[in-house]
């Protein structure tokens, strides 16, 4: 072991005893190991398979009350939008002359509704909703879009199982899809 490495190894052992631990195996040994507690506080994302969904649950009925109190002012009493995004309707319009893209008509995953509302809504008080409130609001938004019945409740297991109407509506990046030719003279 080189002297340098030896010193680093020893200092690592010494530092183990204090809260600021330098990780040993890396090239630069810069940064502090993230504790589970620290990660838990920031790790708010939810994946399509349901990974990251917190414990708890909520009902369409509870969500309806929360929506009226915390969301309707910006998204409309029935999710029709104005001033902010429309959240309801538009199913069957994606091929139309004026497509209406909402949670119900366009979003491929229900988990994204939970993830987004939990992190970013209500717009003026983000990260203020509890997990239960977010389940309830997600349930209500899905109900308004005809995806859940009026009596439904949601929790981690049931949310991850929902299949959204436009689940298969996405394709890969089809570019390059425009073969222009660099004509230089008498082109038109």
């Amino acid at each position, binding site marked *: 072991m080189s002297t340098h490495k030896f010193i680093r190894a020893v200092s690592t052992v010494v530092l183990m005893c204090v809260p600021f631990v330098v990780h040993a195996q890396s090239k630069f040994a810069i940064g502090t190991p*993230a504790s589970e507690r620290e990660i838990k506080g920031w790790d708010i994302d939810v994946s399509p398979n349901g990974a990251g969904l917190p414990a708890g649950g909520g009902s369409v009925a509870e969500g309806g009350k929360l929506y009226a109190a915390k969301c309707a002012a910006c998204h409309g009493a029935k999710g029709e939008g104005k*001033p902010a995004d429309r959240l309801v309707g538009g199913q069957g319009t994606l091929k139309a002359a004026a497509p209406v893209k909402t949670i119900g008509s366009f979003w491929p995953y229900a988990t994204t509704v939970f993830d987004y509302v939990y992190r970013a809504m209500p717009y003026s008080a983000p990260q203020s909703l509890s997990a239960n409130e977010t389940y309830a609001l997600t349930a209500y938004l899905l109900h308004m879009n005809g995806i859940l019945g009026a009596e439904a409740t949601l929790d981690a297991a049931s949310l991850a199982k929902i299949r959204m109407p436009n689940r298969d509506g996405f394709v890969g990046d089809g570019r390059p899809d425009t073969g222009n030719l660099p004509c230089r003279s008498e082109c038109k």
Partner: protein
Amino acid sequence: MKKQADGANAARNARRNFLRNSAVLTGGAFAGNALAQNAADNAPPNVPAWMKKEGRALSDGQYGLPSAFEKNVLRRGRGDQVMPGSGSAMTPLQNLRGMITPNGLVFERSHAGIPEIDPAQHRLMLHGMVKQPLVFTMEDLMRFPSVSRIHFLECSGNTSREWKSPFGKSVQVSHGLLSCCEWTGVALSTILEEAGVQPGAQWVLAEGADAAAMTRSVPMAKALEDAMLVYAQNGEALRPENGYPLRLFLPGFEGNMSIKWLRRLKVAAEPFMTREETSKYTDSLPDGTARLFTFSMDAKSVITYPAPDHKLARRGFYEISGLAWTGNGRIRRVDVSTDGGRNWREAALQEPVLSRAVTRFRLPWQWDGNATILQSRALDDSGYVQPNRAQLVAQRGLHSNYHYNAIQSWAVAASGEISNVHA
């Protein structure tokens, strides 16, 4: 005693400067008029007034601002945003000259306002499929080996209003979600190596510390290729609206993915399908499907002079000038047409022509005073040729919103007025 007297002098000078400065500011509206009236007084053979007195005090203790005569060179929004913090303010391309966008004019696009972040309290967390989850302070990140690179940043919604009909009455409004800076920071690959990426990791979720907690999934290949964690732009700390104190930067990718106010990176096997990569930033096609993960910005160009912001005062010589850029690599050639696309001439490219940076092009032109249409067409080193609008619409219809990169047409009227047209 001496010290006190110095203090009093300093206060007096400061007051004098203040009065002088505020006179300039409040007088701004008629300063121009006064100048116009007396223009001849300051032209030869007369000695200009500003040579006959000492100029203003030096800038000790000040952050430099543009001349008061440049007061109209500002970022501007479209004025259609729902909330003050959700929208964009665009770069005045019609006023810029070289390839670099000054920091005060770099476009901004935010989804829930600009957070005020104390760099001493800011943290970046790196976790998920890594051997050692880590937390970095800003001081930590600045200790790593650093890199500086010049790259453009373009919102994929740039020119999105041009799909259906000519919209922008200014090149700032049509193309101003585009800027180009020198970015300094640490390679993302350096940080990932530091934590040790686990086998099977294919994606990195990047999350901002703004009220939107903006999140995008970044492919691991890009993270390792040329992604940067940036803390400086054009030599100084990032501006708050551009991500202070830390942002992700993905050269050539749609701007939204270069997450500002970066606080968290989570390594994973699968993409996260966030709202910003499903509901938004997907490109709808005529058959009702939408393209997902359209990351790269294709080759594009626009004439920034003359543009609808300008008026040709007389026939004669003009230097046509504009910007070309491509997320695919380098600009190889820019052709310019001064007859509505019939004939094209190769423009001169200003060096340096850098990968994933804007390239300034120029073409000398004699305007004969007749109505005509000006266009530019970029070719990049992947062989890609900037399309015309009909080709784009034929493939993608009218509802793709993002990634509109068609050849832009500026109509020059016999009056010298310039307007945005589809041609």
